[in-house]
Every structure is written in C-alpha cells, then in structure tokens.
C-alpha cells in the first residue's frame, strides 16, 4: 500500500445545476490517509455537493476526483466498495429495528447471513445500542439514530468515511459521543472527511480544515494555522474574516 498517496484527492472539481449556477467552482482537496479532514462553510457553500460527488451519489462537470486510489468518475463500484457514508443524506430505515438495519445493509455489502449477524452484534455492542437493538429505529433518540447511522457506514470497515454534518441537531452529550467515535476511527487508520457548520467541531476533530464558500476553497490549513493567519484569534473570527475577504 502506498501511504503517501492521499486518500481523497480532487483537482478543479466543478459542478453546476441548470438554472442555479455553479455549486462547485473548482474545489481542490488533498486528504492524507488516516486523518480527519474538515470541510467547513456556511449553508450552500458546496460542502454536501462535494461529499455527494466523492461518494458517487452525484456526478460532476469538470475536474478530477480520486477516493481510496480509485477514479470516482470511472470506477464507481471500486469507490463504493471502499467508502462509508453517514449523515444528512444516507439514512437508515425507520421502520426496521437497529439490528435489522445492520443485518440488511451488511447483506447488501455482500456478507453472508451468519457473518452479517455477527457484524451486527459487534457494531451494536461498540455503539452502545444492544438494549435498543430490537426496537424500531423511529423510536430512537437523535443521538442513538446517529450512532446507528455511523455503525451502518462502518459495516465493511471502509478506508474512507464521509460524514455529512454528523452532529447537526444533536444535544451536547450525543455530540461528544459522535466525536469520540470519530476520533477512535481515525486512530484505527480510517480517513474521515466531515462537513460541518460548527467551528468548534472542526477545531476539536480535524487535523486539517478546508474552508469553502460559494463553491470555492477560501482557506486551507490546520486549525492553528487558520487561527494564526488572522492574528491568533479563535476559529469563528478567522472564518468570518476569511469568508468576508473572499
């Protein structure tokens, strides 16, 4: 395995929607393997569009995109076998129980029935969902649902995990639980790309941050570098100064 090769790499990624103009206007990303990378920006900045493209859920008009060594435009199946997606868009089934969700998605990952059951047990244990395993998901709290969502995205131990606003709408305690899970994943070598509107979240979790606004990259660096670039203030102010200057 070539460890120098970035787990996620894009150059000049462009996409426009008919009648709505450019959603992405040339996004460059390089995310080293095994790191947590933040895509930070206001609503409509292009964060979700970027993640959807990289997760093969949407196409793009121009540029290049590689995920886990696979060309996103040419080898969708190859990308899909190596990624996990969780967050705003890719969801779980509300009618089925937590266990049934995990077993179904494990089966769709081509695991045999017995292996799927075992994997479901492991993940229920790991995400503290054993007690709720038999109950329908629509009765879960927001935090439990998000943990299940994360568990589903980890069924096949993906090399690259996309988390689209993983803690939006969660109470502080659930948020910290999700953060702990993300840190644990990163320490086990998974590359994580997460989008967030919360600067605190990016500051705490990410080794590097790409700030995007109106489909463009406006700044890139470690949280410390971004703070230093505007005179050592906190990330909130850095973000405001950078996006206003752009």
């Amino acid at each position, binding site marked *: 395995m070539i460890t120098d090769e970035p787990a996620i790499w894009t150059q000049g990624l462009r996409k426009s929607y008919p009648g709505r103009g450019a959603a992405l206007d040339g996004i460059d990303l390089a995310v080293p393997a095994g790191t947590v990378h933040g895509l930070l920006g206001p609503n409509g900045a292009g964060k979700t569009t970027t993640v959807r493209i990289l997760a093969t*859920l949407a196409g793009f008009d121009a540029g290049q995109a590689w995920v886990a060594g696979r060309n996103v435009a040419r080898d969708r199946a190859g990308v899909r076998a*190596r*990624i996990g997606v969780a967050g*705003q868009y*890719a969801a779980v*089934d509300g009618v089925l129980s937590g266990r049934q969700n995990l077993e179904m998605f494990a089966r*769709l990952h081509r*695991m*045999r029935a017995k292996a799927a059951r075992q994997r479901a047990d492991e993940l229920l244990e790991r995400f503290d969902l054993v007690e709720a395993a038999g109950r329908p998901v629509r009765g879960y709290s927001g935090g439990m649902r998000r943990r299940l969502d994360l568990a589903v995205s980890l069924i096949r131990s993906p090399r690259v995990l996309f988390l689209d606003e993983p803690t939006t709408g969660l109470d502080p305690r659930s948020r910290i639980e999700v953060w702990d899970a993300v840190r644990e994943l990163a320490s086990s070598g998974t590359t994580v790309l997460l989008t967030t509107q919360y600067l605190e979240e990016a500051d705490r979790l990410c080794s590097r941050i790409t700030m995007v606004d109106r489909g463009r990259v406006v700044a890139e660096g470690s949280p410390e570098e971004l703070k230093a670039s505007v005179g050592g203030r906190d990330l909130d102010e850095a973000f405001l100064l950078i996006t206003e200057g752009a």
Partner: protein
Amino acid sequence: MTTVTDASTVHGSRITWAIVDTWVVARRHLLHLVRRPDELLGTLMIPVMAVAMFGFVFGEAFGVAMDVPGAEYREFLLPGLFALTMAFGIGNTTISVAEDVRGGVLDRMRSLPMSPVAVLAGRALADMILAVVELGILLALGTLFGWQAHLGLGGVVAALGLLVLLRLAFSWVGILLGLLVSGPEAAMKYFALVFPLAMVADTIVPTDLMPGWLSIPAAWNPLSSTVIATRELFGNGVVPATTWVGEHAMTMAVAWPVAIIAVCLPLAMVRLRRLGR
C-alpha cells in the same frame, strides 16, 4: 487492501448478486408489512372492499343493466376485480419509493457496492409477493360468494400468472413515478388518477355499455386484455370481442406488461442514476 473480499463475502456473478440483493431489499419491504400490520391490513382491505362494493352495492344494479342476475354479474366481475386490485397497487409502490428517496435510504443503497437494479427490483419483487397474497384473499372471497373457476387448476394458475405479471408491470410504473414525484405527499395527491386506469377498462362494466368514445381507450387499456384473458382461463362467460385488441386478449395480456416493463425499467434506472444531480 483489506476487507474488500474475504471469506465472509458472498462470491458470484453479477446476476447472482443482483438476485441476492433483490431478495434482501424485498425482504425489507415485507418486514415493513410485518412491523406495521395496520398498513398490511389497509392494503388488503382494497380487494375486500372492492368485492363488497361492486359485488353487492353496485352489482345488482349492473346486473339489471346487463340484463343478467346479480350472481351471474359477480361471475363476470371477479376477474375484473383481480386486475383492478393489481392496478390499485401502483399507489402503494409510488408512495413507498418516494418515501425512500425523501428519507435517504435510497441514497444509502446507492452508495453501497450492491447491484444498482436490485435497489428498485426489490420493491417489484415485494409487490409480486404481496399480489399473490391479495389474489389468494380475493379467490377465497370470490368462492365464498359463489364465484368459481370452471376450467380446472391449470387455467387458474395461468390466470394468476397473468395477473402477477400485470402487477409487476404496474410495479415498475409505480417505481418510475416514485422516482419522479417531488415526495410522498404528491404521490398521494395524484392517487385518484388510478381510478380511470382501473375502471375505464373491461373490469367492472363491459366496454360495450360505455359511451362509444370511451370504449376505445377502455378496450386498449392493458387491464382489459388481462381481464378478458383471465375470464377466458377461469371460464367466466366471455363477452364476444368486437375489437382487434379484444380478439387478441391472450397475446396482449402478455405483450402489454412486457412492453410496460421494457419502457419503465430502463427509465427508472436512468432516473436512479441521476437522482440528486
């Protein structure tokens, strides 16, 4: 390269995978019905109500109009209701697919290394299984009310085959519509459109009792071909055909569903690929 293939993974050809994935997705829809029995009951109520309403409330009057006793009308009616029930399933399919688009389950499946056609075909397979259950209830109810098949088991099996094939075709119509509508609410709003499909056909009233301008679309309605063909297979008093399409009902009862699937399935796959872009 870890985890992409290992001993716990099912190996097989593309087609084997498509079949396994389709079954896993179909199982999900069937589990929904088990977990929400009220919904299953709601679905099964349509055929029961149809037999009660059309068989008895309208039946006697229609019998008078057709100059036959009510019992004979019900003999004519039941095959019509079988096909009508298949058509009413479109609403259920459309709403279910629209909910999966809205809720994000479809996106989750699209991000998996599973067979893309199975994402949708699972719904179609679940619909076919549900159709068999519905038809079983209708057959039992019909028998209870004096309806019977006169040409033996072979005819019954062939007729049920045609009806399930029709349901499969309508399932793909519903899947395509579910991918096109803006959400489940829209699917519910347009549900009334299924009435002309189900009734401007040789289902409840013979087409020769309809105004002339209506009898032509009614004769060409795919439901009519299936109804006429199944009446023939059940031996339930066929009204002599006056149109080309009526004379070729048996052929058309296969050709229509096959043509509908041949159009809707590829369009649904194109739409699935383009979702959200």
